[in-house]
C-alpha cells in the first residue's frame, strides 16, 4: 500500500521557489494499478520521486506499507555493454542480492515473458518494444512490491506503444504487482488502470478520482467498450483540454 497524505513539495532554484505539489492526497491499494494523469509540467515525475522516497516532501507524509520499489523510466536505459541477461541482473547486483536463486527466478521470469532467445544478446539487437519489455523484467527481477512507471511508453511509436502497453499491463497483473503510473495520455490511463487520479496544473492537486471497472481488465477489451469514450470525455474535461 502507498498513501499520500496532504503532501506539499516546493523546489528551490536561484530564480525563486516553485510549489510543484500542494496538499496532495491519494491512496494506492495493494494489487491496484493506479494512474496519475495531469497536464504536462504539473510535477508528475516529482510525485513518483516522492513516492519512491528519492525526494522528501516539504510537508505531509508518504506512508509506504513496507516493501521494495521498482522504477521504470521513460526510456529503457538498458546498458549496451551488458547482455540482456546481465541487464536484468543489474538490480540484484546493486541491491547485493545477486544469489543463484534470485538469478534463476529472474531468468524464469524473462523466459515466461518471451525473452528466452534474447538473453545472451545485446540490447542493441532488440526492437523498441522488446527493449521496454526487458526494462520491465529488469525492474521486476529484484521482486519489488510496488512498481513506479514514469511514462514508460512515451518514447515508442504508436503501434509499438499499444502492444507494449498491453504487454506491460499483462505482466504486472500476471505477477500481481501494485503499480503507480504517471502519464499525460488519457487513453493509456483508462486502458491500464483500476483507478485514475486526475491532477490540476501546477501546483498539482487532485481534481477527481475515478474507479475504472468496465471490460475484463485487459487494455485491449477496455478500448473496445462503449464506456471508454465516455470516460475519456469526462477526463478530458477535468483536465481542461
Amino acid at each position, binding site marked *: 500500500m502507498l498513501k499520500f497524505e496532504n503532501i506539499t513539495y516546493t523546489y528551490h532554484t536561484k530564480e525563486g521557489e516553485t510549489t510543484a505539489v500542494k496538499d496532495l492526497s491519494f491512496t494506492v491499494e495493494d494489487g491496484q494499478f493506479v494512474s496519475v494523469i495531469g497536464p504536462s509540467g504539473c510535477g508528475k515525475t516529482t510525485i513518483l520521486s516522492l513516492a*519512491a522516497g*528519492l525526494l522528501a516532501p516539504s510537508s505531509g507524509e508518504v506512508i509506504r506499507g513496507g516493501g521494495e*520499489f521498482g*522504477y521504470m*523510466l*521513460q*526510456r529503457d*536505459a538498458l*546498458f549496451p*555493454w*551488458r547482455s540482456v541477461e546481465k541487464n536484468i541482473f*543489474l*538490480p540484484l*547486483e*546493486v*541491491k547485493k542480492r545477486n544469489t543463484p536463486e534470485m538469478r534463476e527466478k529472474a531468468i524464469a521470469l524473462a523466459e515466461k515473458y518471451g525473452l528466452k532467445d534474447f538473453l545472451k544478446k545485446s540490447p542493441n539487437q532488440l526492437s523498441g518494444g522488446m527493449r521496454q519489455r526487458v526494462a520491465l523484467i529488469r525492474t521486476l527481477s*529484484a521482486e519489488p512490491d510496488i512498481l*513506479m512507471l514514469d511514462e514508460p511508453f512515451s518514447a515508442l511509436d504508436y503501434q509499438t506503444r499499444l502492444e507494449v502497453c498491453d504487454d506491460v499491463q499483462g505482466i504486472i497483473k500476471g505477477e500481481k504487482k501494485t503499480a503507480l503510473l504517471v502519464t499525460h495520455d488519457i487513453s493509456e490511463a483508462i486502458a491500464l488502470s483500476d483507478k485514475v487520479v486526475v491532477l490540476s496544473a501546477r501546483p498539482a492537486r487532485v481534481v477527481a478520482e475515478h474507479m475504472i471497472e468496465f471490460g475484463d481488465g485487459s487494455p485491449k477489451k477496455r478500448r473496445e467498450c462503449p464506456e471508454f469514450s465516455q470516460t475519456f470525455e469526462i477526463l478530458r474535461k477535468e483536465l481542461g483540454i
Partner: protein
Amino acid sequence: MKNKKDNNFSNEHKAYLRKERNKKIIITVSRILILVLILGIWELCAQAKAIDPFITSSPSRVIKTIGDLYKNGTLFYHIGITLAETIAGFVIAVVFGYAVAVVLWWSDSVHKVLEPYIVVLNSLPKIALGPLIIIWIGTGYTAIIFMTVIVSVIVCIMNMLAGFIAVDKTKVTLMKSMGANKLTTLRKLIMPATLPALMNTLKVAVGLAWIGSIMGEYIVSKAGLGYLIVYGGQVFKLDLVMTATFILCVLAGGMYGIIAVIEKRFNK
C-alpha cells in the same frame, strides 16, 4: 548478416563488393606510394647533390647511421631509455589523471574549487617549468618522467571528467532509483560507460607523453632519442638527428597502433 563467402549474391552485389575492395586497395597503395616517393626524391636529390646531404641527410645515410648505432651497441640503449621514460610517464599520467577525474566527479564542490587551477595548469606551457624541475628533482630519469607526466596528466583529467559528466542522465537516475550509492554507480555505470572516452584519452595521452619525454630529454638528459637529437644538432651530425627522428616516428606510430588495437577489441 550474410557470410562473405556466400556465393548466392546477385551480380549487382558482387560488383558492389568488388568496388569497395578496389577502393581499399587504391587507398593502401596510395599511402605506400607517397612514402616511397618522398624517400625516393630525397635520396635522388642527395645523390645528385641537388641538396647538401651534410645538412639534409638522406635515407641511405639514415640506414647507415642505424647500422653504426647498432654495431657500437647504443641503438637499443637509447631507444630503451626513451621508451621506458615515455611509458612510465604515460602510465602514471593516465592512472593519476583517472583517479583525479573520479574525485572531481565524486564531489561537485571539489570540482568547482579546483576548476580554475586546472584551467591555468592546462594552458601553462609546461616547458616553463624546466629549470624548476632540474633544481627540484635533479637531472636523472625521474625529472624526464616528471616532465612527461605534467605534460599529459591534465588532458587525462579533463577528458575523463568530461566523459563521466556526459553519461546519460536517465541511466544515472535508474541507478539512483535502485538505491545505488556513488561507488556502485561508479563501478556499474560510469566506468563501463566511459570506456570509449578512456580509449580516446589513451590516444591523446600517448602523443603528449612523447612530447613530454623528448622535451625532458632536451632539457636534462644524458641518453635517449631526444638526447641524440640535441647532441646531433650541437655537433652538426644531421644524420644522427634524422635517424633519431625517424626512429621516434616508428615508435610513436607503433604505440598509437597498439592502443588502436586495444580500442577495437574493447569496442567489439
